């Protein structure tokens, strides 16, 4: 494991502190622009979320399964744009870090520096760009670093061991461990890759490791947290927002919070 020789940003400092206090980290994902999304953020924050990931809807979300695709299409149909989402975010005071997830063309079209500044002005501290792998990331990372926006890198089960140290070296905030081979969405069981991915990453970095993609309920979150520092909950949150509204998001976040606050011991 290597400890990075650099200053930590707002998000990473927050997550490292939580880890030091033995708290597992919970980050719900909410599609920006969806009816009730701002209330959903508030409800998640009030019920134990440690940060919130806000998805900027995109016309061609290749890493997303049916639930988040449907949420994106609905938000776009309702007129959501990056501008409108940033504008609404400025009115949110939830005292936990806000992270944005968006596809790269949203960043590229705006321009790297302008987009980084837009995030900053909206009170966002970090960005996840799922179709911008390490090799293509240098221009964005330069702009993000300059602005203080933390760029969260993804690490996938397909990465050979030699690749992981290069990915985590560029990670700020946390490392997003992709839990399975596939797109976002709920699965009946936690994939074995979720645990193996977290284990592999914990060996090579002390940047917080959060598992996302295919962590589908409180029990699976608890399982993943046996190794990982925390979890991201995407489709399971968005489905509740789509079907039952913002309060259902809060209830669900509370349920997951309660589960991951009770550690399970992994038999070796």
């Amino acid at each position, binding site marked *: 494991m290597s400890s990075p020789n650099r200053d930590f940003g707002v998000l990473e400092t927050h997550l490292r502190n939580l880890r030091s206090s033995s708290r597992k980290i919970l980050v719900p994902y909410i599609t920006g622009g969806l009816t009730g999304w701002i209330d959903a953020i508030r409800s998640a924050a009030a019920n134990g979320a440690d940060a919130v990931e806000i998805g900027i809807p995109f016309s*061609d*979300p*290749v890493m997303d399964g049916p639930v988040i695709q449907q949420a994106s299409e609905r938000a776009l149909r309702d007129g959501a744009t990056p501008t409108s989402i940033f504008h609404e975010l400025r009115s949110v005071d939830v005292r936990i870090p806000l992270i944005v997830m968006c596809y790269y*063309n949203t960043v*590229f079209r*705006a321009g790297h520096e302008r987009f980084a500044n837009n995030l900053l002005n909206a009170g966002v501290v970090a960005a996840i760009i799922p179709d911008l792998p390490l090799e*293509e990331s240098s221009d964005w990372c330069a702009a993000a670093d300059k602005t203080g926006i933390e760029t969260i890198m*993804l690490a996938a089960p397909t990465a050979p061991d030699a690749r992981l140290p290069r990915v985590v070296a560029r990670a700020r905030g946390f490392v997003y461990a*992709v839990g399975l081979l596939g797109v976002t969405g709920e699965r009946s069981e936690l994939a074995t890759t979720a645990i193996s991915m977290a284990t592999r990453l914990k060996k090579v970095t002390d940047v917080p490791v959060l598992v996302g993609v295919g962590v589908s309920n409180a029990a699976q979150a608890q399982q993943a947290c046996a190794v990982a520092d925390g979890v991201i909950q995407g489709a399971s949150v968005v489905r509740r927002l789509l079907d039952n509204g913002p309060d259902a998001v809060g209830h669900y976040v509370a349920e997951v919070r309660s589960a991951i606050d009770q550690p399970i011991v992994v038999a070796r």
Partner: protein
Amino acid sequence: MTSKSIPRELLTPGADGRFGEFGGRFVPETLVPACEELEQAFNSAWSDSIFRTELNDLLREYAGRPSILTECHNLGAQLGIRLILKREDLNHTGSHKINSVLGQALLAKRMGKKRIIAETGAGQHGVASATAAALLGLECKVYMGAVDVERQSLNVFRMKLLGSEVEAVNSGSRTLKDAVNEAMRDWVATVESSYYAIGSVMGPHPYPYMVRQFQSVIGQEARQQFKAMCNGDDPDLVVACVGGGSNAMGIFSGFIDADTRLVGVEPAGGAAVGRGVPGVVHGMKSYLMQDEHGQVQEAHSISAGLDYPGVGPEHSYLSSVGRAEYPSVTDDEVIAGFVLLARSEGIIPALECAHAVAWITKEAPKIQGQTVLMNLSGRGDKDVAQMMTILGDSLG
């Protein structure tokens, strides 16, 4: 720009997969190792004489290569030009797509993959993929926008007949771009066992380069055949339709270093190069139809095969340096071109290729006496039902 300042070399992209500023590998982290593995596998296969011989044998004995040149004496005389067609429509499965698919399917086998995934617009690449899969004993799944499934039902049946599974894609605009999205989602989940056979010179590196290499057989043959037919000369113009742009890159590649105008004809409702705004989608940086926020726009064209809001990155490069030009034609002009080639030469073109016919017809007054080589990349059988609805009784 003087002709001296225009680059006339065919680029081989380096590790960054760039054609100038275009191209690259903008894929989810899950797919990066797969793209790297594919790049190595292709480079190794392409320089392996056994692989090349195997591919060339298939192209000759199965696909029916070389495809011939046909001079359009009637239409040429009518337009005041010399018009010669490269007959990719005569290949097995009826289009140029078989050139790339045979190469990719052989490569998939070489890489130990048992299953191929493909996206399709008009269905030509899907049919070619289903054909190669049947021949080489691979499982095949084809993603096709629900709108295209509707308007190209004959090709859907062909794919099923050949033993492939066809999935209608109901997300987004339900056309080619959404079929690509769904194929990529499949690939993200099955990357260890599946090979994604992309249908055009698009996608993440090495696809744009690899598919061009597989399609370059069109340009190589055409250059030699044209010289043999025309006293050792090169054509004044080479014209091809452009959606993703694989048939155009195939024929352009043979004439990059010639003193020949290269013309890629886009549909007016899908003019990615014509609009000239760069963007990133489907793994590549290229010209892309999009709104001010970067949302990809839907292309609208009479031909399913050109209903794509992006374009292969090498076309963006060739346009940006001035080596090729990318005009567009309207659906009405395309319909007229479709009928014109059928009636003057007895050749029913694919609606995609009717775009090239339409542009040549329009341009004819400005290119009197010149020689024009057009890539007839597919035959029109698949479009007959659609045209019957459009033209109705108007043909008399």
